[in-house]
Each structure stands twice: as structure tokens, then as C-alpha cells.
């Protein structure tokens, strides 16, 4: 705990019978870009709000930089927040907005202006100091909100779905900018989003939340390729989930009996245990000889083939009587028609054992 910049211990939040956050333990290291990811109602925004001091936890404690801040109001916490609607003061110029936190700390005007301009340069808005807020585009406002929070040099910078209002290309651009700025300034960022692609693009570590609890926590690649829970698996991307039963152990793997055959899945399970197996669509091969190490699991009849730009998205009926729907991918230029029967295979190491 000494090296974590933010620590939550047994934190929960309930409102009149509804629980928003339930017994959360979380440690965030200095300089980390952490993303709280989850659907609406998952509690991610409430956790952010508690770190910022806008919501008091019902139980549990919150530490920032080793100090217990559970009872401390926002003004006295070393945090700064970028709000979802930016909350830029409409009656102040860009420079005054950015310098506001410094003004509250009684920094003299000349120094304030200097530092505000410095931060504006950092976020790519050099020279915008004298403009009014209403003259800015959505992306520019977003940067000003970020600059305003950075200017007070907080220990933790909190971002509440800041990119939600931007269109796709602008959002991608801002995601890159956020990472660049974070690395440049070195501050710990805690970012809330419901967009798993966004989370994977920017996070050092993703915390997947659902219904007030943490489902999974780890670097983007691990969460995507080897999710810990069923929810995390399906939330992070398209998934083929097969129900099965553990029948035999085999070293590092366990043989799981599924409707598509008995498959070797990395991981341990008790004999007879009911489990689920995850196979990502991009790991399901649809041509023979493409991958020698892959395990075949029968034929599938194509029911849909959709062009997605980089690939063809296929829906197939596989297994006995074609009762198991499988989503797979093919090369974009492959000719596939509805009704084709294709051989399905997958590498053992790409399978994931899940419970729940």
C-alpha cells in the first residue's frame, strides 16, 4: 500500500435499498493509466465519484498517497476531475478557466497565466488563452477541461467518460492524445468508460466492473485473451461460449466435454465440474490446412456472411444437428456463401476456461 497512489479498502455505496458499489478493494500505482470499464449501472462512475470526494462511501476507506481521505471534501483532495460535460465556466476565458485552480491556491496572476499557457501548449491549444468557451469546438473544449485539471498538478486525474460526446474519428484522435499527455505529465489517470475498444487502446490496466463488483483486473491483452469471468469475456468482445463438463485432467490442461466435442482447455477443473469454454471468433479457423496445430471440431453450415472491411464475419451452425451457433471470421476476400459447409478448428491455447 505504500507505493499505491490510490487505495480502496472494502468500499461500498448503497442508496435506499439499491447497492451501487459492493465491497471494492483496489490499488492504483503512481503513473498508471487505469480504466474503469463496465456497462451503465456497473458502479464505475460511483467509484470515480468516491475517489474524487463527490460521493461518500457507505462503508470502507479510501486512501490517496497513504493518507485517509474518506472524509475529506473534494476541494482538499489532491485529485482533479474532467467532467463528462466538461463544466467549463462559460463566463471565463480559456486561460481563466485553466488557471482557476491556481487562482484558488492564491497563485499570483502573472505566474498563473504563465502556467496556464504552458499547459495549453501541452494539450495542443497554444494561443487559445484569450478565447471564450462558446467559441470552441467539442474537441477543443475537451482539451481545455483536461488542461484545467492538469494545471493544478493533482496526484490523481479522474476522467468521467470524457470522450463520449465526440464523434468516432475525433475520439480516436483524443485517445492517442490522452495517452501521450499522460505519459508526458506522468500523473496517475483514472478513466471511466463503457467502450471496451477505448479501454484497450489507452489503458495500462483495465478494471472490469459489473453490478457494483470488480469482475476482472489486468492489462488489456490479458483481459481480452484470458478473461477471468464470463461477464468479462463477453463484455470485452464477441465470444463463442460453449457449455461443458470437465472429464479428464491432462497436465496443464483439462479435457472439457462440449456439444462440439471434447476439447483440451488450459486450466484446472474438478472432475464433473460444469464450466464454460470461450473461443474468440478470430481464433476459430474455417479452412483446412490453415493451422496444423489446431483441433478440429467438425463442420459448420454458414447462415450469415457479413463484410466488415477487414474481415468477413461468419455465423455458422455447428455441432450435432447444427444446434450450436458459432461466430467465426474469414479473410475479407474469401468467397463464402450462405449454405457452405466449412471445417472448424481452433488452437487449444486460445481456449479459455470460465466459470459462472
Amino acid at each position, binding site marked *: 500500500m505504500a507505493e499505491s497512489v490510490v487505495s480502496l479498502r472494502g468500499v461500498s455505496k448503497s442508496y435506499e435499498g439499491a447497492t451501487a458499489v459492493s465491497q471494492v478493494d483496489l490499488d492504483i500505482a503512481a503513473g498508471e493509466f487505469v480504466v474503469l470499464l463496465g456497462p451503465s449501472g456497473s458502479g464505475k462512475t460511483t467509484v470515480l465519484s468516491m475517489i*474524487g*470526494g*463527490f460521493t461518500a462511501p457507505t462503508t470502507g476507506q479510501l486512501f490517496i498517497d497513504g493518507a485517509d481521505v474518506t472524509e475529506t*471534501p*473534494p*476541494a*482538499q483532495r489532491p*485529485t*482533479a*476531475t474532467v*467532467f*463528462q*460535460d466538461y*463544466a467549463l*465556466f*462559460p*463566463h471565463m476565458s480559456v486561460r481563466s478557466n485553466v488557471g*482557476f*485552480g491556481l*487562482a*484558488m*491556491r492564491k497563485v499570483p496572476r502573472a505566474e498563473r497565466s504563465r502556467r496556464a499557457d504552458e499547459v495549453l501548449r501541452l494539450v495542443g491549444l497554444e494561443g487559445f488563452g484569450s478565447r471564450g468557451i462558446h467559441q470552441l469546438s467539442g474537441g477543443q473544449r475537451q482539451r481545455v477541461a483536461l488542461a*484545467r*485539471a492538469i494545471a*493544478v498538478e493533482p496526484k490523481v486525474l479522474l476522467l468521467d467518460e470524457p470522450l463520449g460526446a465526440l464523434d468516432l474519428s475525433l475520439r480516436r484522435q483524443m485517445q492517442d492524445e490522452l495517452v501521450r499527455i499522460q505519459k508526458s505529465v506522468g500523473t496517475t489517470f483514472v478513466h471511466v468508460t463503457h467502450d471496451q475498444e477505448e479501454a484497450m487502446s489507452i489503458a495500462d490496466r483495465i478494471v472490469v466492473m459489473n453490478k457494483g463488483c470488480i469482475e476482472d483486473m489486468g492489462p488489456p491483452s490479458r483481459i481480452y485473451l484470458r478473461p477471468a469471468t464470463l461477464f468479462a469475456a463477453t463484455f470485452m468482445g464477441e465470444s463463442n461460449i460453449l457449455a461443458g463438463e470437465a472429464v479428464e485432467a491432462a497436465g496443464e490442461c483439462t479435457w472439457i466435454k462440449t456439444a462440439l466435442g471434447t476439447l483440451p482447455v488450459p486450466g484446472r477443473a474438478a472432475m464433473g465440474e460444469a464450466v464454460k469454454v470461450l473461443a474468440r471468433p478470430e481464433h476459430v479457423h474455417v479452412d483446412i490446412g490453415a493451422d496444423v496445430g489446431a483441433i478440429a471440431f467438425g463442420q459448420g453450415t454458414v447462415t450469415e456472411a457479413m463484410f466488415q472491411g477487414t474481415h468477413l464475419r461468419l455465423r455458422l451452425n455447428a455441432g450435432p444437428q447444427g444446434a450450436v451457433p458459432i461466430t467465426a471470421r474469414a479473410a475479407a476476400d474469401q468467397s463464402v456463401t450462405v449454405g457452405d459447409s466449412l471445417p472448424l478448428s481452433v488452437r487449444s491455447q486460445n481456449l479459455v476456461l470460465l466459470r459462472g
Partner: protein
Amino acid sequence: MASGRHWLSINRWGAAPALLFTAACFIAPLVAMALVSLSERSGGHTVLTWTLDNYRGFISRSDGAFVDALVNSIQVTLTVTVLSVLAAYPLAYILAYRVPKRWQRVALVAIVLPFWTSYVIRSYSWLLVLSENGVISQTLLGLGLIDGPIGLGNNRGATVLGFVHFFVMLLTLTIYANLVQIKDSYRKAAADLGANGLQTFIHVTLPLSLPGVAVGAFLTFVLAVGDYITPQILGGGNELLLPQAIMLQINRAADFPMASALSMVLMVVVTLAYFLFARFLRMERV
């Protein structure tokens, strides 16, 4: 069947009845009044002679009594506006930010319940409180703090009190409505950046609420400067305000030209106030 095609469609003529009515019953009377202000009484009739006598009379007649009335009106109205805004703002602020959201509407309606008394009765009821036979006098008498009954009414102070009583309620309503539509996130952002309660108020809440307050203040000014009832009931006979002077010219003196001229003066005052207010608002934009 495209709308707007039919000859009698609302989309074409909808505003016509209201506009015609306004032109006939509002514009025309004002024009008539302006003309009458330039007329003379002659043998029981009003004759348009394009004379400025009435306006000269405004300045010179009765030792400048009319000018006094105008000055009194402006002084009283400005005092009332300032006092009412200063008293109402904290009340509206407390209602908007200290009362739990659920109870705000109820609290608001409850606090300004007396707003819905008849305006005439409301002014009169201050006499029940202020006059020699009124509550204050009789209570002080009963407590032995004074020797004889004192009348606190029938003077400018009572008029101001009567006005402030009404406008504090009106302004509480309007300022409250204005405060609650300021986004919560502004105050949260200010707090997040280190501002304490007072700083948040001075740097964020107050500046953002000023335009709304200005509108309320202007409304107060316009309503108060043209009001006849409160000064008539509470002001006593020693000092006249402009609307009372106008009333006297209509009822007692039947001097419509003079009354019209005085009304035009009143309109000029309100128009000037409007331009000052509009300029203030435009400055606020920047």
C-alpha cells in the same frame, strides 16, 4: 394534404387575431394617448393642437409638484429594487442549494404563499400591522414600552415596506428559478479545483446568476414604478408618487391631456430603464 396549403390554415393566419387585437387595443390606445398628451381641453372636448403645454406643465405646474412626484417615484423604486434583491437572493440561494431537492418545490410554494393574496388586500394588511391601532403599536403598548399608540404607516417607509414585502416574494421565485438551472457540474468543478464555499459562490454561482437577477430587478423596477395601489394605501397623503399624480389628473381633475403627458413621462422612464438594463446584459455576455 400538406399543412399550410389550406387557405384558412393556422400556419398562415394563426398570429393574426392576436396581432390585430394587440394593434387595436394596445398600440392604438397608446398612440391616442400620445396624441392627447399634445392636446388641450376646450369646452368639454379634447382638441389636438400639437401643444407642448402639458409637458411644460409637468415641469412648472404646482411648484414642480409633478417633477417631485417623478423624483419620489424613482427614489422609492430604486430603494425597493435594491432592498428586495438583497433580501430575496439569500432566500432563493438557501432554497436552491441548502434544502433537499425533494422538498424544494413545496418549500418554495409555502414560503411565498402570501404572494397569492389579493394585491390590494396585501397592502392593506400592512396597515393592520403598522397603524396606530395596528398589531405593532398595540403590542408595544401592551408591553408598556411606549406611552401612546404610534402610527408607523402613512409614510414613504411604509410604502417601501409594502413594496419590498411583495417583491421579495416575486424575486425569490425568479431568482430561485434562475439558480436551479445553473448546471451542478460548475459548482462541482470549482470545488474539485480547490474552491471553498465562498470562493465557489463569488467566482462561479454569483456571476452565472447575475443575468437572471438583472431580469428580476428590471421586472421589479417596472412593476413598482407604475404601481398605484401600494403608495395610495400605505403612503399617506403627504407625498405623491407619479402613478398617484396620474390617477388624480384622471379622476379628480378630469385633465386627460395632463394625465397623458404624465403617462408618457412614465413610459420614457421605463424605456430608459430598459435600455440601461439591456446594456448591462450585453456587457455581461462578455
